[in-house]
């Protein structure tokens, strides 16, 4: 638990991490029940499924896994009475470098996930769900299994849940060390027992042709936990915590060169980058200057310290005006980060100070993507390896004048040319590092 300070920062509002923060909080069901557990499920079972989906929509809950898709909209793609089996698959494959929140929910408060999942299943007429947990969390798999068994014994899962007539079975499924399985269609292939090559969309949107070619919802662990709190607090109250279009709280994972790295659960849009680094996380290490921030997991485009963005927005009279926005004043929510050309992604914020060599940092990420490319699409399979080889050679003193242009050329020919978003994920670091720190790549080429 060394990533979570027991005392929240004043800017934090802990909802997902409220229980986990309590001294002596244990992952068993008695502790959970003593802390208001399964009350939201009881409430849900008295509601109509459509009312729950409407509440999730009104709460402006966006997915917390990386893509940030509005959760209620995703659910409404499933037709309640289409006569087909529906499935929910929980994405607990947390593997995006910089992200480490779901680990704590799975280990410390598994019933929160089980309850959120049960509510979500009821809302979408789903009777079978799987929780996909990466195998590098072996204890989490045991803890979540145990929670499922406890919930069964108390009648919160299984046949005729709490006398409502609603049935749900949940099983844990462990991954086997592949980052690609965090991509939702790859995850489904993995769960079907096949090589986890992502499926092409269209036509294989999970909501249409998902697990076993049936309508399927794939949601991140944290996202489903939020559903419980939307019912507990009410959609309006929940939405109010965030910004329009990005409701509730978001768990930010801060790592790298700050005094207090860790998990911070903040209302969406509550802090700027400056407040996050210099207030919430206690600033940089003594004598250091900020150099760069990767704001949303390693795939998010890097931000350079000191840069000023030009943001176009509509003035009250309807004309478009351009506003200057310094890097540290960017608000850490989905739309603000998007407007400056990057993303909130999985909210994994990696901070780099002036002691860091950007060619070295990019090479580390390039090696990650080269290792994790599944190999299905040629541009990604070959390109991720080429990028990694080039940056490794630059670091080893073999840089050439043509390297920066070649790196850019390779990256530009991966993004948009692959079956899944891994192509973008592995190109964006190279594209953005080259664009933001050209002088370091030029120096490495000499």
């Amino acid at each position, binding site marked *: 638990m*060394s*990533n979570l300070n027991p005392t929240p920062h004043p800017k934090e509002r802990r909802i997902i991490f409220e229980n986990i923060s309590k001294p002596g909080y244990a992952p068993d069901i008695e502790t959970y029940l003593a802390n208001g557990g399964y009350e939201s499920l009881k409430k849900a079972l008295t509601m109509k499924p459509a009312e729950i989906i409407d509440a999730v929509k009104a709460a402006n809950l966006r997915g917390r896994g990386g893509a940030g898709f509005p959760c209620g909209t995703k659910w409404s793609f499933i037709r309640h009475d289409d006569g087909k*089996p529906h499935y929910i698959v929980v994405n607990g494959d*947390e*593997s*995006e*470098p*910089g*992200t*480490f929140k*779901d*680990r704590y929910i799975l280990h410390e408060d598994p019933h929160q996930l089980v309850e959120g999942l049960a509510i979500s299943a009821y809302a979408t007429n789903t009777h*079978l769900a799987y929780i996909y947990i*990466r*195998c*590098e*969390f*072996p*204890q989490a798999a045991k803890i979540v299994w145990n929670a499922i068994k406890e919930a069964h014994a108390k009648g919160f899962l299984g046949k005729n849940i709490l006398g409502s007539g609603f049935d749900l079975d949940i*099983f844990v*499924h*462990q*991954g*086997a*060390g*592949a*980052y690609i399985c965090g991509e939702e269609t790859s995850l489904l292939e*993995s*769960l*079907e*027992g*096949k*090589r*986890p090559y992502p499926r092409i969309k269209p036509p294989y949107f999970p909501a249409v042709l998902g697990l*076993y070619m049936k309508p399927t919802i794939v949601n991140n662990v944290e996202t489903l936990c939020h559903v419980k709190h939307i019912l507990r607090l009410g959609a309006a109250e929940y939405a109010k915590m965030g910004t329009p279009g990005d409701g509730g709280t978001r768990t930010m*994972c*801060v*790592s*790298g*060169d700050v005094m207090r*790295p*860790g*998990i911070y659960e903040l209302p969406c849009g509550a802090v700027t980058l400056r407040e996050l680094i210099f207030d919430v996380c206690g600033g940089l290490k003594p004598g250091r200057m900020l150099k760069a921030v990767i704001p949303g997991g*390693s795939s998010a485009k890097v931000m350079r310290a000191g840069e000023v963005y030009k943001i176009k927005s509509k003035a009250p009279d309807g004309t478009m005006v351009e506003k200057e926005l310094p890097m540290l004043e960017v608000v850490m929510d989905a739309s603000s980060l998007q407007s400056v050309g990057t993303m909130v992604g999985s909210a*994994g914020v*990696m901070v*780099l100070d002036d002691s*860091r060599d950007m060619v070295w*940092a990019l090479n*580390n*990420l390039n*090696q*990650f993507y080269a*290792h*994790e490319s*599944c190999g299905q699409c040629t541009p990604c399979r070959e390109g991720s390896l080429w990028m990694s080889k080039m940056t490794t050679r630059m670091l080893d003193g073999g840089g050439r004048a043509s390297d920066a242009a070649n790196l850019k050329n390779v990256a530009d020919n991966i993004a948009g040319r692959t079956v899944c978003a891994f192509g973008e994920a592995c190109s964006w670091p190279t594209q953005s590092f080259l664009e933001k720190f050209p002088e370091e790549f030029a120096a490495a080429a000499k």
Partner: protein
Amino acid sequence: MIEMTTRQADHVTPAFEAEADELVSHYPVSKRSASLPLLHLWQNHFGFVDDTGVEWIAAKLDLTPINILELVTFYPWFRREAAGRVVIRVCRTLACAMAGSYEVKEKFCEAVGLDPHSGHHGFGSAPPTTPDGKFSVEFVECLASCGSAPVALINDDLVEKIQPSEIASIVNKLK
């Protein structure tokens, strides 16, 4: 006396098979979905997956062996040869690397008596392992604990904020 063979499948017990059947029952729609769970069960029990393991799992799920072998060769977790009884997996990715994970991995290798520069090429091979079969050390990609970097997964336990100076004593406790 049972003749010992090197064929893993010859050592499958009724209890093991019952556990396998229980796992298959978690997938009422398609038992092919039990491929990964059975591979985990096999590797946890036997230490690695040999040809007879691939064949046994395939037969259990009405598949052909290639359906299982293609998973063993895809996923980094599975191996076709024995690793050490203690597997030390040091996180290599950015936050951990910034916090010194390359030095941490080297120190672990030195502490257990492995060449710090020996590579691990995957594709089912075991990570570098000490001759007595006690320790394996390898780099793995992000373990999702970046705020407490550098970290390592030692068998089932996550060790956080590893100081190079404490590595010798961590290893001594595992001996």
